[in-house]
């Protein structure tokens, strides 16, 4: 099996919808679903994981280069669609990973049908409403506020200027278009599904939940609620870290994930 050094961009036909995808590496299949901001393509931590796994990074329907089919209007629809995506690739026994909104979608996928999922990794997932705090407003705030919410300490973020720089009109259109889809999927109920804590009780897949201790968007309290909802799951809290541990604490995050997967 050849190792792809950098993720290559392809499209995958899912029942007539062309799904944009980056992929690379070799080994067991690991599928990653992005958050509400959309796909950032092939990232350094994907490269890290691709040393041991074949990593697939699709743009979900309505985000980036993937059009949303007319029927995809809810998180459940996205979860069904993502199952079709995995089937279209012909992947068996996958490691399913998702971050934020993508973590929510991954949790819904596992609750629907986890027979093809060998391991589940949820990274600061949305989907469960906190009991004490609140999920922060992400739609009715400025881009600057959104960026501040995301990272605990920008100095820990490699190439931070990529997140804070001025966007070209084409990039702005993608960002805006992604926001429209996220708004469609997450507005009401806001970034959660009241049934999810209950439907997750059927999940038997080994599960790792990773959370940034200083997550300013989805409070770490939700990590404990996920752990309670999924039998036998492990919760790994990374300190001095915000909503995106894979970006802000890359090596710690990658070590946590590979350590978990190697223990199975």
């Amino acid at each position, binding site marked *: 099996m050849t190792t792809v050094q950098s993720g290559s961009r392809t499209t995958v036909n899912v029942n007539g919808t062309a799904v944009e995808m980056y992929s690379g590496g070799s080994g067991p299949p690991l599928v990653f679903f992005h958050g509400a901001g959309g796909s950032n393509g092939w990232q350094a931590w994907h490269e890290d994981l691709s040393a041991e796994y074949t990593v697939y990074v699709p743009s979900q329907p309505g985000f980036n280069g993937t059009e949303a089919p007319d029927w995809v209007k809810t998180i459940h629809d996205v979860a069904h669609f993502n199952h079709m995506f995995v089937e279209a690739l012909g992947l068996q026994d996958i490691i399913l990973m998702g971050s934020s909104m993508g973590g929510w979608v991954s949790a819904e996928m596992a609750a629907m049908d986890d027979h093809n999922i060998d391991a589940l990794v949820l990274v600061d997932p949305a989907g469960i409403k906190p009991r004490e705090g609140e999920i922060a407003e992400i*739609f009715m705030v400025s881009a600057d506020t959104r960026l501040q919410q995301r990272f605990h300490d920008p100095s820990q973020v490699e190439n931070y200027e990529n997140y804070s720089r001025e966007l070209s009109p084409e990039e702005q*259109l993608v960002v*805006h278009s992604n926001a429209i889809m*996220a708004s469609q999927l997450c507005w009401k109920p806001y970034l959660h599904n009241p049934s999810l804590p209950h439907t997750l009780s059927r999940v038997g897949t080994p599960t790792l939940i990773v959370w940034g201790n200083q997550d300013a968007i989805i409070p770490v309290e939700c990590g404990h609620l996920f752990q309670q909802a999924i039998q036998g799951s492990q919760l790994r809290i990374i300190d001095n870290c915000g909503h995106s541990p894979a970006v802000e604490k890359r090596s710690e995050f990658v070590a946590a994930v590979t350590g978990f997967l190697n223990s199975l």
Partner: protein
Amino acid sequence: MAHELEVFWFSEQPYGHVTEDDLEGWESGRMHFPNTYFDPEKAHVLYSNYHDQYQLADEVNFDGIMSNEHHSSYWCMKPSVNVDAAVITQRTKKAKIAMLGNVIAVNDPVKMAEEIAMLDCISGGRVISGFVRGTAVETLHAGYPPTENRPRFEEAHDLIVKCWTQPGPFRWEGEYWPHRMVNPWVVPIQKPHPPVWFPGTGSPESVIWAAKHRYPYMNLGSLLDLTKQLKGIYHETAAEEGYEAGPEHFGYLIRCLVADTDEKAQEIGRTFLWTENHRNRGPMEFNDPPGYQSREALRIKMSRPLIGTGTMGRRMTYEDLQDAYNIIVGSPETVTEKLRHIRKDLDPGYILIYGNEGHMAHEDVMRSVELLGTKVIPALKEG
């Protein structure tokens, strides 16, 4: 037959006791500005004044009265345009009643159809039924996802028109308001249904929607150059649809105050800028949360570069706004001249007079209504 100019009176019914100082320090002028600043006793007096102004406008021969609806807004105390229209039916005898309009995306369309039909019957067929998407705040206030505003608007529109035009009972397999049986007892007196208007400020998508339905488009006070471009889009769309648009398809809202002298009008008219900088203050996403504008609207905007979006976001002084014909104040002669300029420039079939603002004194507004009705409008209609 050529369409004759019609002039409408409009007051947003502001809660004029709010000051700049009150608004300072709150994150936005709408969702965050707390309603503890609202005094119902003071509102009682204000409503009464505004209704007196309606009655006078009818008596001095305004062709119609326009009303509207906003929520979470200190500058518009009308959370229900239908309630205000009900008042107008009772305080006026002959004026048309233009509702601009019902925020149909966030209301039960069958009840909307019934209420508007009821108003049409009560008023003897004087109702013009505007439909609006509302500002984004109206949708946020009502608790609906912004992405649903456009499809809800479309479905509500179709269902309301069907309630008015198709005998009941009928089934409605809608996405948002599915009904097994629809059978409203009260239907409009005007046939096939009351005229429908559609407003806009700067969005080409709104103009195109109005033109495709052959509904008159009311521009809410954009600058003249932009308004002319939007009107051009209406005419283009009409041509594509196979009809020729005329003045009867186009109206224009203008802030306007008349006093006995230019000097006095200049002084009173300054209140048109009352708390202007606070109205839509707040994160941009309050006025345009993701999904309130469709991808299609974004595409249209990118394909048709316009000079701006009304006056919002521009720092224009009272004098600048007068030079741009965006605010018109003066003696009857001065105002007549300026409105003639607008008429020549835009050729609107309807001029909607935004005639009251903030803490303007009731007597001053009443005098303005009187001078408009007895002097300006007759002179304007003469040509």
